[in-house]
């Protein structure tokens, strides 16, 4: 058994079905249950981050009205909002949630190759979330250093939570990285070793490719955050001077000497930029599958898409310093990073063209997942094109630390991936629960979210070009050059943000209501070709495939094949079982 490949374990009983409620739903080693645990936890902590953004918008839109929001609170909200959204929501949801659910099902495996490690990964992730939340309740409150946690200010007494909040933050990040590494080893090894018969790498759905490559990026990039978290914790607790230069606080010299704050920035962004693609690549992959399925057309340029994912993954490690143009770097250094940054636009643009060409002359079904997928293309182009501005040093310098940057990164790596998350949840919820999500509520959720995010972020570009700085608690009186229109605009943005935040409650209600009252979905409601829709049971049982593992005969995109009776041919249909047109069953 020890040497038998996972793919050869045809007998489902060898994986002994869990019996009690606890082993089935709490201490579960089943990848599907772990995926749902990850998803629920990520959405729960994401709601905290959403609430924080509402509080920030209340302050920015109506600066005099909310006395509960003190400046230090505002900085805590900013910091935690950013960190939670990027790491604890998006990374965890895409890799821990969708990665766990889709990799074994799409590859035709019974489970991850190390189910026990997978289970531990979730519980350690939960611990990381709890430590993060604990930061709110320690003396001094959570850290307010901004999500980049730049020293020296992150651990100096001027910043909120400089004593214990920052330690909670760093500890939580380190724990998260341990959890991610355990999960990541599983995802990579499962993709490499546990694919079913016939599933070559070049037949894998692009969702799996995106998640796989994002995991590889995460495994190589998260150590940089780990290194900086450890060294900063030591600076904070033991008084070492890795990052801390000689500084005085309130006229008194602190014990630090000679540390390099720039070193932290390099380490942070050596992680931070790949992190953008850790979030984006799974979104790229999943949206490719959504577009193909709901346009009833094969993905355009499959091989190109795979190589684009690989190229983006490699390039993402050599662009990190474009986040540091204003740190006083050598101009040649800046030139190098501007060049690599613009080069990365090439594979990214290829992907956009291919998505659009997939839709071209497709039989487009405007289902809710499809609406989100198309909205993703729009939003990604909007956010991506402004990235070209910010990638160039001379344009970036005046725009740096303005609302232009805020709008850019929210559209490109906040809203775009979250639109895919929504699309994917609408798409795979029927497989997870056996019931459809309510269509009307879904459409309300979609249109308010989609239009609403534009009402929020397009004005921010304008604010940025006016020079409105980000991360300011209030803009009144102190800054002379800001015209009154900015304040009106801020009110508008805040009101829009309330609407968008409120409509997410409709989505949550839909998730819960449909679980009990939703329309039964059947095994394959979207008439998809990929393996997860061909399971004998819906939701799939432990071991996924019943007695026999599936065998794959074709790629994942046989939609509207000329001459075929149905407009889709599942991956596991052998060539001799194809029913030609007009052939009676």
């Amino acid at each position, binding site marked *: 058994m*020890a*040497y*038998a*490949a*996972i*793919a*050869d374990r045809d007998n489902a009983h060898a994986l002994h079905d869990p019996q009690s409620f606890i082993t089935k739903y709490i201490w579960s080693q089943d990848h599907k249950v772990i995926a749902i645990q990850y998803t629920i936890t990520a959405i729960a902590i994401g709601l905290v981050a959403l609430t924080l953004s509402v509080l920030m918008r209340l302050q920015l839109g109506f600066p005099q009205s909310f006395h509960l929001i003190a400046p230090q609170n505002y900085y805590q909200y900013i910091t935690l909002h950013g960190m939670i959204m990027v790491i604890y929501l998006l990374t965890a949801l895409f890799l821990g949630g969708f990665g766990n659910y889709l990799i074994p099902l799409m590859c035709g495996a019974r489970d991850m*190759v*190390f189910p026990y490690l997978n289970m531990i990964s979730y519980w350690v992730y939960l611990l990381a979330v709890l430590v993060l939340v604990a930061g709110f309740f320690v003396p001094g409150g959570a850290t307010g250093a901004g999500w980049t946690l730049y020293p020296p200010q992150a651990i100096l007494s001027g910043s909120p939570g400089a004593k214990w909040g920052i330690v909670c933050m760093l500890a939580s990040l380190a724990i998260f990285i341990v959890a991610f*590494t355990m999960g*990541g*080893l*599983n995802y*990579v*090894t*499962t993709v*490499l*070793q*546990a*694919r*079913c*018969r*016939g*599933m*070559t*790498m070049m037949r894998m759905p692009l969702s799996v490719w995106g998640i796989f490559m994002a995991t*590889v990026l995460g*495994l*190589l*990039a998260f*150590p*940089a955050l*780990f*290194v900086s978290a*450890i*060294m900063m914790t*030591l600076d904070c607790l*033991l*008084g*070492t*001077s*890795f990052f801390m*230069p*000689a500084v005085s606080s309130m006229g008194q010299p602190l*014990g630090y*000497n*000679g*540390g*390099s*704050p*720039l*070193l932290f920035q*390099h*380490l942070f962004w*050596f992680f931070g930029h790949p992190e953008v693609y850790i979030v984006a690549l799974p979104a790229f992959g999943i949206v490719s599958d959504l577009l193909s399925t709901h346009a009833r057309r094969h993905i355009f340029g499959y091989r190109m898409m795979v190589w684009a994912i690989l190229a983006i993954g*490699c390039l993402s*490690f*050599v662009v990190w310093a474009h986040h540091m143009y204003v740190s006083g770097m050598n101009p040649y*250094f800046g030139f190098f990073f501007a060049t690599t940054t613009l080069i990365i636009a090439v594979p990214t643009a290829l992907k956009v063209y291919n998505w659009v060409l997939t839709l071209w002359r497709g039989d487009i079904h405007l289902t809710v997942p499809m609406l989100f997928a198309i909205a993703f293309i729009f939003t990604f182009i909007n956010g991506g094109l402004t990235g070209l501005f910010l990638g160039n040093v001379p344009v970036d310098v005046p725009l740096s630390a303005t609302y232009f940057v805020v709008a850019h990164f929210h559209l490109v790596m906040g809203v775009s991936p979250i639109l895919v998350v929504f699309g994917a949840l609408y798409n795979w919820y029927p497989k997870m629960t056996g019931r459809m999500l309510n269509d009307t509520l879904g459409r309300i959720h979609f249109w308010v979210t989609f239009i609403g995010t534009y009402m929020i972020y397009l004005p921010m570009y304008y604010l940025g070009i006016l020079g409105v700085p980000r991360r300011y608690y209030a803009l009144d009186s102190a800054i002379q050059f800001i015209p009154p229109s900015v304040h009106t605009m801020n009110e508008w943005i805040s009101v829009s943000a309330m609407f968008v935040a409120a409509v997410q409650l409709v989505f949550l209600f839909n998730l819960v209501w449909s679980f009990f009252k939703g329309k039964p979905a059947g095994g394959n409601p979207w008439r998809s070709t990929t393996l997860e829709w061909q399971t004998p049971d819906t939701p799939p049982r432990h071991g996924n495939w019943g007695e026999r593992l599936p065998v794959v005969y074709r790629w994942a995109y046989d939609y509207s094949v000329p001459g075929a009776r149905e407009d889709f041919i599942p991956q596991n249909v052998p060539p001799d079982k194809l029913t030609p047109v007009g052939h009676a069953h």
Partner: protein
Amino acid sequence: MNIWVAFGVLTVGVIIWFMLIRKLNTKSWERHGSSVHVRSARGDLGEVHVPPARIALWVFLAVITSLFGLFISAYFIRMGHGHGADHGMITDWHSVSKPPILWFNTAMLVLSSVAMQLARNALKSNKRARVNGYLIAGGVFAILFIAGQLIGWRQLHASGYGMTQGPAGAFFYVLTGVHGLHLLGGLIVWLKTVIRMRKREVELIDVRLSIELCTLYWHYLLLVWLVMFTLLLFT
């Protein structure tokens, strides 16, 4: 300097990753292709797959290559670019006196690695007692290494270099600490293997993979230590 170290890390990562990508065209469900030949006392087991644990360990080695590479990169940057050093100011980097026990520790770690390799070799001739002996020796040498490192810490501390007395000392504690923790993690797997081998019903073939992977991990950590030790000695 710093940028080149970063690229060095990157290159190593990419190389390891390419070793993985070579597997992209393999068919994981097929019995030939990427397979190893296993023989045991009970006869030829035939060709089998590369076990998932082996792949996972290689991926993990890529992860910790990135980790140690970045630590070493940070070491160089902090050494060369202490605040103000770019502008002709004197850096605050002062080399610390290395405790002589580090040489003894290095010898222990080499012996540990050799013993693990001998255990692995003994697997092939199927000599259970020898495998057991070398395996335990390998672990004991590793424990001696860690104990020696702790003594080294005490000696360094006693000679006046605490965490806060300059970056060289602080890096010494951090680098050796992280390396030691990784070795401790390996020792947990080693301990589980040793306990399993004490059971009668556990055949040699059942622990073969654990021993092979421990050996690989031990060699890797020896390599990391040699790189780090050289670095610490000369700076």
